[in-house]
Structures are given as structure tokens and as C-alpha cells.
């Protein structure tokens, strides 16, 4: 099948049953600054710990820094991925591969914060994470489902920040087990009695302390919890209802299941889903670690991309695959690689972005800085722009100061329509 560009795709959509199903969601998308149509949802595939660019999307086999990792030809002429990523190599002509991302934060926690919020950590302001920004800035389309969910993440810092706790993510585990605590243990009569009792207690508090609800948001969250318990949309989390063939496509791993659940959730209208695959911090045994992790990554990401395409969601959903930094070209004494912020790889796909693009180039000897460096905050601004959110949007933070969502500049060459 020849590649279909976004407009052709949309034109086709409106005439099909698929188009009818999608229409509600798409009508909420607004044209971005460059005249393109924005993505509706974003899936962040978070590779926690910092994967090695050399063992994933930017191998330099044969040289001093390459280690034992072999390259594999991709569907893009002249572009190689690590041999452990065969399915992604095949899908390369659909991807945007950024090989020259640079961060200023070489510590896990600070690097994670920088990448997920688009801002370096400072003591006075807590910046909101990507998902929280999407939840806050974009209209709600998901019904009872939360707007921002994380799967298998243990990152408690990524949240609403100065936008408020209300935009913190709902954190889920392995979708293999059902979400916790969504079923009441008592019958309908007792549930009703409990609910009316709670109203009486809350009314008493409200009489004594006006304005307390606005500060605690307790009742609002209880109401949300109750709506979620009653919601049929909870079935979005039931990945076992997918055909075995689809499940197999993602790989039978927690990360693969997470990616599948993410697809179901964005389909149901969730704005941002973050799925974590941890364990990349390969200070020792870099190559063993990457071999094991890359196999999981390859299946899950390739499965997700194929599925998004098959379901006509390609341009509606932006996929971001990244960790907080990369790893040193130099191999240390423990056969490991350490933290490296000066040129590492991030992959983007879908969301109306161009296909088959490689940006930047790292030095095969690991000495010179990368060509076409892309600072993390410019990348973050680009992601916001793809979502139709102006990175320069200002919010007044506690303390009364107006702060931009992100100081980075969107990468125009990716956004031109």
C-alpha cells in the first residue's frame, strides 16, 4: 500500500464507517499554527533508566565505541538500527528518528523531570508533566475515564505541578490484572446508604468551613471515582477482549500489554498514556541488558505502530519513545555504559508527523558533539505543538509569576505541513 498522507486519509475517513466512529473525536482537533491538524492523544513509551542509543536506534558497529552490537538495515536507505530491533527496522520508513537529542541533566531524577515536563528542575516551581498539560489544556473527550494514565510507572513526580493535583495521572499496573479497587464489596442498598451518609458528613463540614471543597477537591474526586466504578469504559482496560492475534503482535510482556492497553485507552478518548519499560540503567553488562530489553521494546512498539495504522489511528495518536538520556560511547570496566546527555536517540511516530525522517548524527568515534543537536526542551515544545498546545502558553504559578509551559522552540522542519 502506498503511504497515505493525512489529508487523503481524512478525506477517506469521512466516507467510511470508521470515519463515522472517529468523527466525534476528530472534530475536537483544531488546526495548529502551521496549518496542520493536531494529534488527539499521545502515548509516551518511557524507557526509564536511559537506553543506549548505540544498542537501539543509532548503532556504530565495528568502531571503537560500537561494542559487540551489530547493525541491521532498515527500510530507510543507508539507515541502520541495532540488530536487536528487526521489526522496528522494517517500520523505519514510518518513523521520525531523532539521533541528536541533548539534555542538560545527567541524573536520573532530574533528567526524567526535564524530559517529562520540558523544564529543568528548579526549587521554586513544580512544572506539570506532558500528560498533565494535555489533560489541562485540551477538552475532555474520554467520558468517565481519567485524561492521563500511566501504566507500570513508578514516577510520582510527573504530575499536575502548578496546574494542580487534579491533573495528576491515574497510575495502573500490569493490565493483565484488573484495575484495583473499582468494585464495591457491598450491595446496591448499602452503597446508596453509604453515599447518602457521606453527603450528610460533607454537608456538615461545608457549613463549618466554607471553601474547603475548592481547596481539597475531595468531593469532586469521590464523584469521579464513583463514575469510574459505574463506567462501561472500564472495559478499555480489559485487554483480554482483544483477539489473540492482536495480543501476540505486542509480545506477551507487561510492557507489550501496557502498550496494547494504551491503544485501547486512547481509542476511548484518553489524552495521554505513559507506559514504562524500566531497567535500562546499564552501568554494568550493558549489552546483556540491552539484548533483553530491546526484544521487549521491538515487539511492543512495532506491534503498537502496526495496530494504530490498522485501526486508522495513525495520525490521531502521537507515539513518543524515549528515556531520560542515552549512554556513553565509551564502554566502562564493567562492560557497561554510563549516563550520556550529549546526543542520544528518541523516536516519534504518527500524530501527523512526516514519515521516514532521520534528524541528527552522532560522531562514530564518540568524541565530537552531534550534528543538528536537539535540546530536550525543543523536543518537548514540538510535542506540545503536535498536540495543538502552544508551548508559550503562560500560567501564573504560586508566587504570582507567569511561567511558560516550555521555553523550547518547536522544530519547524517536523511541523511544516
Amino acid at each position: 500500500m502506498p503511504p497515505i498522507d493525512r489529508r487523503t486519509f481524512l478525506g477517506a475517513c469521512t466516507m467510511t464507517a470508521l470515519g463515522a466512529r472517529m468523527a466525534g473525536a476528530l472534530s475536537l482537533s483544531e488546526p495548529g499554527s502551521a496549518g496542520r491538524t493536531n494529534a488527539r492523544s499521545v502515548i509516551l513509551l518511557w524507557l526509564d533508566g536511559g537506553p543506549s542509543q548505540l544498542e537501539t536506534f543509532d548503532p556504530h558497529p565495528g568502531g571503537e565505541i560500537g561494542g559487540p552490537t551489530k547493525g541491521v538495515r532498515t527500510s530507510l536507505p543507508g539507515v541502520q538500527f541495532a540488530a536487536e530491533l528487526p521489526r522496528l527496522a522494517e517500520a523505519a520508513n514510518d518513523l521520525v528518528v531523532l539521533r541528536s537529542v541533548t539534555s542538560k541533566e545527567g541524573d536520573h531524577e532530574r533528567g526524567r523531570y526535564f524530559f517529562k515536563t520540558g523544564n529543568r528542575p528548579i526549587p521554586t516551581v513544580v512544572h506539570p508533566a506532558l500528560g498533565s498539560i494535555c489533560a489541562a489544556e485540551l477538552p475532555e473527550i474520554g467520558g468517565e475515564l481519567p485524561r492521563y494514565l500511566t501504566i507500570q510507572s513508578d514516577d510520582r513526580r510527573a504530575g499536575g505541578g502548578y496546574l494542580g493535583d487534579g491533573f495528576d495521572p491515574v497510575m495502573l499496573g500490569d493490565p493483565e490484572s484488573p484495575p484495583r479497587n473499582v468494585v464495591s464489596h457491598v450491595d446496591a442498598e448499602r452503597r446508596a446508604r453509604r453515599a447518602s451518609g457521606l453527603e450528610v458528613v460533607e454537608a456538615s463540614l461545608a457549613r463549618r468551613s466554607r471553601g474547603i471543597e475548592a481547596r481539597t477537591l475531595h468531593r469532586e474526586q469521590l464523584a469521579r471515582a464513583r463514575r469510574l466504578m459505574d463506567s462501561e469504559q472500564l472495559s478499555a482496560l480489559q485487554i483480554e477482549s482483544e483477539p489473540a492475534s492482536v495480543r501476540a503482535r505486542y509480545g506477551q510482556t507487561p510492557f507489550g500489554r501496557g502498550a496494547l492497553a494504551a491503544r485501547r485507552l486512547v481509542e476511548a478518548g484518553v489524552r495521554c498514556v505513559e507506559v514504562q519499560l524500566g531497567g535500562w540503567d546499564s552501568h554494568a553488562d550493558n549489552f546483556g541488558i540491552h539484548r533483553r530489553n530491546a526484544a521487549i521494546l521491538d515487539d511492543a512498539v512495532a506491534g503498537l505502530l502496526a495496530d494504530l495504522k490498522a485501526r486508522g489511528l495513525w495520525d490521531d495518536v502521537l507515539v513518543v519513545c524515549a528515556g531520560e538520556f542515552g549512554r556513553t560511547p565509551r564502554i566502562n570496566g564493567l562492560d557497561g555504559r554510563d549516563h550520556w546527555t550529549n546526543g542520544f536517540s528518541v523516536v516519534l511516530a504518527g500524530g501527523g508527523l512526516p514519515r521516514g525522517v532521520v534528524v541528527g548524527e552522532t560522531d562514530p568515534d564518540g568524541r565530537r558533539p552531534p550534528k543538528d543537536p536537539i535540546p530536550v526542551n525543543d523536543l518537548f515544545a514540538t510535542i506540545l505543538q503536535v498536540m495543538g498546545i502552544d508551548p508559550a502558553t503562560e500560567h501564573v504559578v504560586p508566587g504570582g509569576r507567569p511561567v511558560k509551559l516550555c521555553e523550547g522552540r518547536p522544530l519547524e522542519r517536523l511541523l511544516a505541513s
Partner: protein
Amino acid sequence: MAARLGTILCVIAAAFLAALPRLGALKAEKPPVLPAPTSIETAAADIDRILEQCWRDKGVEPAADANQAALARRLALVLEGRIPAYEELRWIESQPPGEATSRYADRLIADRRHADYFAERLARGLAPSMPAEAFFAYRRNRFVSWLGDQLHGDRPYDELVTELITATGLWTDRPAVNFLSSHDQDPVKLATRTTRVFLGLRLDCAQCHDHPFRDWKQTDFQGLAAFYGQVQLGFVGIRDGKGEYRLDEMGRPVGEVVEPVVPFSKELDPGEGWRRERLAHWVTHPDNPYFARAIVHRYWRLIFGKGLIEPIDDLEQEAIAPAAVERLADDFREHGYNLRRLTRILVRTRAFSRASALLGPVAPAQEAVFAAYPLNRLRPEQLAASLAQCSSLQTLDARDHWLFRLIDFSRQRDFIDAFGDRPDDELESRSGNLPQKLLLMNGKPTVEELRPGLLSATSRIAALAPGDSACVRLAYQVALSRLPDEAEEAHFSQSLAGTKGEERARRVEDLLWALVNSTEFSWSP
């Protein structure tokens, strides 16, 4: 009526006391030797005067005083991380008016559980990077137990810190070495932690570059790290070797030897002797202005839930009422670095007993300068313990044996999973979203703690309280430490009217469920 109910319940409580050995907690504990109370009151009054001046300067009126029941709840949550037991509320009522609150505070502070709770909170700042696996949980428990012993035994804080910095040996028989080993005995991590926790300074920003707007130079940080540069881990645990400390860049030693040098107040460094002892001497020296200040800020935040500066490990900012910090720091130095005394002063201030937004109208401007008590969300461990307390009319027993702690630990896992508990998130606790609400509504802890059963509070409230109103009042005191208002009492009495046996117990369970899921339960008064 209330008096009669009180008498009856006292009899009931006494009967259970006699029946259950685990209620020994009620027995008067031998109070530790404490300084004369007048001096504590004087110090507290000084702090209040400084704060009042600060309010006058800003044109802020103080909030009303919190009522006695709310104050008891606040004290138990702050000092022991749980709500008061029903029997404690009765005990408070039996005390001479005007002294009840301070007596209750002293009783809590003298309690072993207070030392354990504060040890747990402080340990987060000291030994952060321990994953939640059984081995590490055991190891961490050893450390927290040890820290609890030190706090309960009134170990002077300067001695305590000296031991943490200089400990050698195996973590099994010297739990203090966990401070070093939980940082992988890495000089950079240890220098970072030392300055942040013990001095409230973020020198680590100078790790990669000279501090942009402070005086710290990159070499200051490196010189500090060199004090830990000889620490080694071997068969006999942590010890110091003879090697020199060199910088490393991405794991590779580069450049010349870095000598241990303190970044300021250089005259306080003895200049000779064992490196870690020199560092401890400098850190804890009475003339190092940051040492006492840093712990005062940490304790203020433990007790008020909000710091005089935020974050509290960045003291180079203007604090609210800096004179109050100096007064507390001076008192701390002058009284032998006694942490229990510091705690007693802080809870004895009038500022501590002001109403919070949960109790009445409070303006943000009042809260900002501690003219009202800050509105604090309960931390996950406070919620878990409070929910557990709702299952009993008596104070849950203090169990410091590590096996029981491990059980408690796994019991709290549900909360920690839902609420988030990065071990080092002492500085910033965020919570309050959907999974947490779902956990309190439908989760196993709520089901288990409120389930009717032989000794459960639910069954005993249902069976023993004389009449529907008494039942409702008792449930309110157990869960919310207060009596119901008229509308509440009427609503729930009606719900209980004419019921008995299991049906009544179920209705009490539903009542307790409503109380546990209310705003008041999840926020500190």
C-alpha cells in the same frame, strides 16, 4: 446523658483493659527526664511573639484557636502518625481543663511510638535509596529501629549525626552505617546528602558547575566529597582506607588528587585526623550556623506540615519569620541538641493550636505566615495507621519488634501503592487522586478494618453503645475525634433506629465507611 454514656464507656473500656494484655499501652509510662517546663513555655512564647510581630507587619489577623478535640487529633497525627483512640479522648476529658492538651502532647512525646514515627519520617531523608524488597525492608527496619532508639533515648542530635557520618562496620551490628551504605558509600552522593540533610544546603548544584548565583564553586563540592573519599566496603563492612580521592568522569578517574576541604567556616575544621571525623566535627560544630538551623526547619515542617521555607533543604532563601528560626536554633544549641525539647516547644506554641481551614474560615494570607495552622493532607502512612486505629477503641499497641514492623509494612503497601511513597519524598508529598479514593472506598484495608467482628470497633459500637444516638456519637469520636452535629446525629440515628444484631453492625459499618471516606478523615484538622 453524655456523662452517663461516658461512665458506661469507661467501665466498658476498663473491662477490656483487664481482659487484654495488649492494652498495656494505657499504663502510665515512666516519663523521661525532661527540662523544667517553664523554660519550654518561655521559648514557645518567644516564638509566638516573633510570629505575632510578623503578622502585625503584614497586617494579618490570627485565626481562632482550634478546639480541644481537633487539637488532640492534630497532635496524634503529627507526633505518632495516627488519629487518637477513643480511650485517649476520654483520658483528655478527665484532665484538668487548660492543661489537657499539653499533658496529652507530653504523653505522646514520651511514647515509644512517637520516636518510631519520627524515626521513620527522618529516615526518608537519611537513607533514601532502599528499594521496597524484603531484604532492604529488613535492613531499613534495622536502621529505623536504631534511629527510634536514639530518639527515644534522647541522644543529642550532634552526637547522632556524628555517628551517622563516622560509623564503621557491618550494617547488622552497626545500623548507623546504613547512612553510608544506602548511598553506595559514594563520595558524591554522600556529600550531597550531608549538605542537604544536615546543613540544608544544596551544594550539589556546584557538582557540575559553579553555582550561578551563590558563592559555591565546583571545587567546594569536590573538596567536601573528598571527606568520604576513603570509604570502602569490605568483609568487615564500612571502613576507611588510605587511598586518595580523584574526580571521575563517567566512571573514569581523571585529573589530580582532590584534598578534603570544607567550603566555608574553614576555621572549624580541625585540619588533621581521620577524614570523616573532621567532617563530622565541622558539620556539628556550634559555630556552623547551618547545622541547628537545618534541623529546626526540618522539625518545623514535621510539626506544621509546611516549612518556614520550601524546600527545607535549600536554606539560602528568606524564611518566614527568620528570627523564630534563630531563636529555636539558639535554644537547641543551648539545651544540648535535644530533639524532644525542640518538639515540645513547637507543639506548645500558640501558632500550633490555631484553627486550620478544615475547622473554620481561614484566608490564604493567614496560612502563609502561620497565623492559621496549614491545611495538610494525611500522608499514606498516616492514613493507613488512622484507618487501623478505627478498628479499635483502644490505642493500638506499640510493636517495635521488626517482625511486626514487616507485617505493618506489608499492610501499608496498599496505601503506598496507591498514594506513592518514594522513600525520599519527604520534601514533597503529593497525593489525592483517583486510585487513593478508590482504595479508601473499596480497598482491602477499609473492608478489613471496618468489618464487624468480635473485637472490632464496629461490632462493639453497635452492641455496647446504649441507644442510637450514643452509637452515632461513639462512631464519630472513633473516626473523626469529634461529636456529630444535630443534622448528622439525626440522620444516622434514624438509619440505626430499630435495628439489632448483625443488621445493626452492618449499619454501623456503613456509618464508619462514610466517616472514613469524608474530607475530614483525609485531611489533618
